C-alpha cells in the first residue's frame, strides 16, 4: 500500500493506449489483471467506443463458449467409447466368432480342416513310410479282352495249335518268305549234307535258322500243320513250352508247276522211301493253294528224300525244335508244296 502510494506520487499517471487496452481485454474480462492495470483499463474503456465493442465481443464469445461447454454426452455413447475393443481384441476374445452366422462358421471350419489336411498330406514323406504300409497289388486290370479267332482247325492241326488259337495267341507263320540264298538244313545226327538242296542257288550255304519258330508255327498261305495224331493230345501245357525242347520237326516248302500232277509222284516217292503219314490226313492232302504232306520216315532216308524233292524243284527245309520226340531213327516232316505263281 505504501509502495503503491509511493508510485503514484513519484511517477506521473500514464493513460493506456488503445492497443495496450485491447491486448489486456481478455485478461481484464477473465480477472487476471493486477489492480493498477485493471483500474487503468476501467478508466480507458469509457473513452473509446471500439474498445467497448471489443469488450462486448469478448463477453459474447465467453458466454457462447460457456453454453457450448455445457454439451453433454449420452451414457451409451460414453460407454461405447470407453468399452470399445479393437477388431483383433474382439477376435482374441471370440466376440466376432460368436456373432457370425452358423453357415459362415461351418464354412470356415471346413476350409481350415481342408487346408490342414492338404498341408499334412504334402508334408508327410510318403516314400519313406511306404515301407511300413501294407502293400497292395499295384496292377490293375482295366479291360479284359477275349479275342476269339474263328479258325476252323484243320485235320492235321495239333492240339497245341488249336489251344493257341483258342487262347487268342497269334500263330506266326513258320516259314516267312525266305530269300533265295537260304541254305538247307544239314542232315540229322551229324550227317553232313553232300549237296545243296536248292540247285538253282549254288552259292547258298547250309545253316539252321537263327531262331527256331515255336511249336505253334503253321505252314504259310493257308497250309495247316498236322504234326501229331491222337497221341499229340498229350502236348505239354503252356508253362512247359518254355522248357528246352528236345525233339525236332523238319519243315519243307516247295513251289512247283503243276501241283496236281506232281502231288501223286511225290507221294509215291515218299512212300517208297518209307514215309508214312504222321497226321490225320493222307499224304498229299490237297488244299486250295497246294498239297500238304505230314509224314515220318527213317532218319537214314533223309538225304534220299531231299534228292527226291529236289527233282521237282527248289526246296527250303527248316529244322524246328519241337516238344515231341520221335522214336530213335525216325524223323518227322511237314512238307508244303505250292503252285508256282505265274508272272503277269
Amino acid at each position, binding site marked *: 500500500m505504501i509502495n503503491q502510494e509511493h508510485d503514484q506520487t513519484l511517477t506521473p499517471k500514464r493513460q493506456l493506449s488503445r492497443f495496450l487496452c485491447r*491486448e489486456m*481485454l*481478455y*485478461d481484464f474480462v*477473465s480477472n*487476471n489483471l493486477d489492480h493498477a492495470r485493471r483500474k487503468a483499463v476501467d478508466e480507458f474503456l469509457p473513452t473509446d467506443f471500439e474498445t467497448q*465493442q*471489443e469488450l*462486448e*465481443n*469478448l*463477453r*459474447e*464469445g*465467453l458466454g*457462447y*463458449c*460457456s*453454453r*457450448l*461447454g*455445457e*454439451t*453433454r*454426452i*449420452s451414457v*451409451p*455413447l*460414453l460407454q*461405447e*467409447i*470407453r468399452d*470399445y475393443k479393437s477388431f483383433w481384441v474382439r477376435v482374441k476374445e471370440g466376440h466376432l466368432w460368436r456373432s457370425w452366422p452358423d453357415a459362415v462358421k461351418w464354412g470356415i471350419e471346413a476350409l481350415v480342416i481342408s487346408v490342414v489336411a492338404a498341408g499334412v498330406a504334402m508334408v508327410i514323406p510318403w516314400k519313406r513310410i511306404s515301407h511300413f504300409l501294407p502293400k497292395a497289388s499295384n496292377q490293375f486290370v482295366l479291360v479284359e479282352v477275349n479275342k476269339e479267332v474263328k479258325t476252323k482247325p484243320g485235320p492235321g492241326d495239333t492240339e497245341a495249335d488249336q489251344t493257341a488259337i483258342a487262347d487268342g495267341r497269334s500263330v506266326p507263320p513258320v516259314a516267312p518268305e525266305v530269300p533265295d540264298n537260304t541254305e538247307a538244313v544239314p542232315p540229322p545226327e551229324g550227317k553232313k549234307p553232300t549237296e545243296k538242296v536248292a540247285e538253282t542257288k549254288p552259292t547258298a550255304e547250309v545253316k539252321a535258322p537263327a531262331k527256331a519258330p515255336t511249336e505253334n508255327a503253321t505252314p504259310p498261305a493257308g497250309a495247316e500243320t498236322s504234326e501229331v495224331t491222337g497221341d499229340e493230345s498229350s502236348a505239354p501245357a503252356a508253362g512247359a513250352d518254355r522248357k528246352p525242347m528236345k525233339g525236332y520237326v523238319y519243315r519243307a516248302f516247295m513251289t512247283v508247276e503243276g501241283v496236281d500232277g506232281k502231288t501223286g509222284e511225290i507221294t509215291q516217292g515218299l512212300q517208297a522211301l518209307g514215309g508214312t503219314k504222321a497226321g490225320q490226313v493222307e499224304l498229299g492232302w490237297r488244299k486250295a493253294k497246294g498239297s500238304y504232306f505230314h509224314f515220318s520216315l527213317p532218319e537214314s532216308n533223309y538225304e534220299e528224300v531231299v534228292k527226291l524233292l529236289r527233282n521237282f524243284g527248289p526246296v527250303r527245309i527248316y529244322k524246328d525244335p519241337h516238344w515231341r520226340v520221335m522214336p530213335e531213327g525216325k524223323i518227322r516232316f511237314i512238307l508244303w508244296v505250292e503252285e508256282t505263281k505265274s508272272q503277269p
Partner: protein
Amino acid sequence: MTEEARIRLLALFFFFAALDERFAQSAAIKALRKCRQRVKSLGNRDEKWPAVIVDVTNSFFNKLKQSKRLPAAISYEAGWILPEGVDLGPWMEFQKEADLDEFLAVLWSRVLGISDEAISEGLGVSAGTVRHRVGRGLHILGSVKRGDRRR
C-alpha cells in the same frame, strides 16, 4: 480427473472440431487409447492428463486437416446433447474465420475448460501465448455471434 471426464473432453473436442459424430466417436476412441499410452509412459500421473489430451488432440486434428477429411456439413445424433437454444452456426463460422491456433485455443480453454497452463504445456508454448490466442479467438467468435464481424 475421472475417466468419464477424460472421455467427455476427447469426445467434445472432436465433435466441435470436426462437427461429425461418427468421426468424433472413432477419433475419440483412438485418441483415448493414445492418451492412455502416453500417460502410462509418463508414470500414470493424473495431473498430466490435461496436457496429454491437448497434445494428442492437437496432433490428431493436424492430421485431420492434412488429410482433408473434414466434413462439409454438420452431423450429430442423439449421442451429443447440446444445450437448448444453442446454435452451431456461429461456431462453424468461427471455425472458418479464425486461425487454427486461435480456434483450438478457444476450444480447449473456453469450451472444454482446460487450464491455460495445461494448454501451454501440451503445445509447448508460453501461457501468455495461449491467452493471447484465446483473446483473439474470443473476439472473433463474439463478433461472429453478434453479426458484427470485424477484425
